[in-house]
């Protein structure tokens, strides 16, 4: 009797490992629009709050957000699309991935479902809308824009390069002036934090492109060399931080004059009380030709043959609502891609809104959508400090990166 009881208990415990998960998988998808996002932490919480605001309007299809780390998002998209099980209704993807997913036949077009709605090109920033357009069809609907900007310590600006921030545009020439004046005081002129972002901006400002005339990715070129040579000269002149140093901490401690960083760092910067600080465009190579690299995350619809049209329409309704009700999400420091938000006074009072408030600012936006460009970004991130410190020759390294990109893309 005891043996039978033990056997029954053991079987029950074994089944308990499997059954609850199976049950949850079946019931999760009914009557809700599922959104998968790679944004976690406090910013992810703000997105969730924004979605809850939408659900509070009692839509026919409430929205359920599943936030996860970026690498996990990619893995789950792989398993969902291959198994054709649990495919999300919406996935929040990065700008440069839309064309890649379209090339892999993984996305459904929004064309039929946005026709006749306010979700159209006239209501969004052109650069952000164009990210989701591939071969004339719309595969992405803009969500928000994350932009690389520059924070500055106004007190240190007044001391070492007075007047530089008057016109709202700070050039590399002004940074050099500040660097020469400040380095003997142990003050850093330029915080070189995220290499890829700094490189992308200056590279584009110098006239660089990530694709050649035939559409192949290119990084082994003279402009890329010139870009990295410039950063190297700044490092050698003592105008930047050293490798491994925490550039954000240095800025917040009043040790850095100019810190290029993302708009998503806004909430952290707002903790500064020791000095006056501001936010402006990323440093410019040419003040008369402002170029501002940005990303525009997109709502993409992965292929699911079992998805009824009502759900696709409901997803569009959610995106349409978000177009005019994004304030909570934008508290993360992101910018809207929706022109309707430009009429919102609360949004216009947010520090990051300067990036799209004026036509000139909107024209300066550049979004990198070259398929596979993320391979270049990753390699630049890994190799930038080796190049700045002179551990490797810049031309040789760029040639090596080009080879890696060619092999990975299968050219």
């Amino acid at each position, binding site marked *: 009797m005891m043996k039978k009881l033990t056997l029954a208990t*053991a079987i029950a415990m074994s089944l308990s490992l499997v059954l609850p998960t199976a049950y949850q998988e079946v019931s999760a998808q009914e009557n809700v629009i599922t959104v998968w996002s790679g944004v976690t932490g406090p910013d992810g919480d703000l997105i969730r709050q924004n979605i809850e605001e939408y659900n509070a309007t009692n839509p026919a299809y409430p929205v359920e957000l599943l936030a996860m780390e970026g*690498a996990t998002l990619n893995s789950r998209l792989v398993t969902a699309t*291959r198994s054709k099980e649990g495919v999300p209704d919406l996935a929040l993807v990065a700008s440069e991935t839309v064309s890649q997913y379209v090339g892999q*036949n993984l996305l459904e077009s929004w064309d039929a479902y946005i026709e006749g709605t306010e979700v159209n090109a006239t209501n969004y920033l052109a650069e952000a809308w164009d990210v989701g357009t591939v071969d004339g069809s719309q595969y992405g609907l803009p969500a928000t824009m994350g932009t690389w900007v520059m924070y500055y310590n106004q007190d240190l600006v007044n001391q070492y390069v007075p007047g530089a921030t008057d016109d709202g545009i700070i050039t590399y020439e002004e940074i050099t002036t500040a660097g020469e004046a400040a380095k003997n005081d142990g003050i850093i002129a330029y915080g070189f934090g995220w290499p890829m972002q700094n490189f992308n901006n200056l590279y584009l400002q110098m006239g660089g492109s990530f694709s050649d005339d035939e559409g192949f990715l290119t990084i082994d070129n003279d402009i890329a060399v010139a870009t990295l040579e410039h950063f190297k000269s700044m490092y050698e002149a003592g105008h930047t931080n050293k*490798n*491994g*140093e925490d550039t954000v*901490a240095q800025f917040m401690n009043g040790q850095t004059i100019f810190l290029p960083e993302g708009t998503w760092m806004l909430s952290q910067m707002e903790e500064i009380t020791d000095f006056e600080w501001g936010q402006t465009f990323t440093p410019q190579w040419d003040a008369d030709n402002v170029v501002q690299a940005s990303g525009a995350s997109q709502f993409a619809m992965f292929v699911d043959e079992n998805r009824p049209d009502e759900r696709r329409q409901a997803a569009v309704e959610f995106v349409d609502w978000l177009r005019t009700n994004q304030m909570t999400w934008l508290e993360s420091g992101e910018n809207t891609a929706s022109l309707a938000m430009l009429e919102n006074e609360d949004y216009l009072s947010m520090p990051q809104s300067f990036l799209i408030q004026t036509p000139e600012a909107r024209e300066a936006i550049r979004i990198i959508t070259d398929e596979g460009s993320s391979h270049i970004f990753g390699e630049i991130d890994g190799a930038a400090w080796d190049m700045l410190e002179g551990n490797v020759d810049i031309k040789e390294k760029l040639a090596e990166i080009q080879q890696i990109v060619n092999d990975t893309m299968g050219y």
Partner: protein
Amino acid sequence: MMEKTQFNEQNKKKNFNLLPAVFVGPHLLIFLVFTLIPFIYGIYISFTDWDLFTDPVFVGLENFKTILFNQDSSFYKQFWNGLQNTFFFVLITVPFCIMVPLVLATMLATRPKLHRLFQAIFYVPSLFAISAVMIIWQFLLSVSYGPINSLFGLELNLLSNQPWAWISLVIVTVWWTIGGNLVIYQAAIGGVSGDMLEAAELDGANAFQKLTKVVIPSIRFQILYTTIMTTIAQFNVYGQPLMLTGGGPNRSTQVLIMNIQQNAFGSGMARAGIASAMAVMLGVCIMVVSIFQFVLMKKQD
């Protein structure tokens, strides 16, 4: 009649003894689903070109030819650089992962004051998750606010310059893995015959001679076993170089598993076939080294 009844009852017992299967079953199921099947599938994928999203395309031995022989390919450079760094890491780490716990176990065997406290202190790091360990050591070794630089009045970037990057990796790895081998050696040393030690002492052996002539020979099986297991574990190094040095400076600490992960699951287009081929080759290397060590262990036995 009595014999027939007994025979039938014995048969019944044999037929209905499912209990062991039920207890072992879940583990076997998990092993099958999460280890054996992916292992076999991974070998198949190594013969394909696969971007994870679409169907794999069979390419035969192309991936292996590329990583082993095609010197113009970046995958060839990645593979050989990664393999070289992995072997180097194993060579410089395993001896310390054996010797340091052995020395500590020997010292603890003398039962000094607070030996149980020290035992716990030495063991605790092995309980931490790798990410927690790396975050702690990132701060300790940080050029901005790391206490090590401040304490010794240095201005070294211990994670972005050689040989400090390798030294940092070895120190962190040894610190993290002391506990596992320590408890094995402690148990082994505790099992050394007291009679032999007494006899050695009577013959005039000092502490060092007792250690080298009696204790270590007595626990050689445990030392060989831990050497094999430590070697296999260190061949699979990933978290330490990823989170501490990022594979730098200039890919000098980029181990093979980092390349495998980047090619299969990194940003952009996945090259799972190439990644699997690299993983298969790494598995072959580990198998060869392990077989060699097992043969050695058998000979010693």
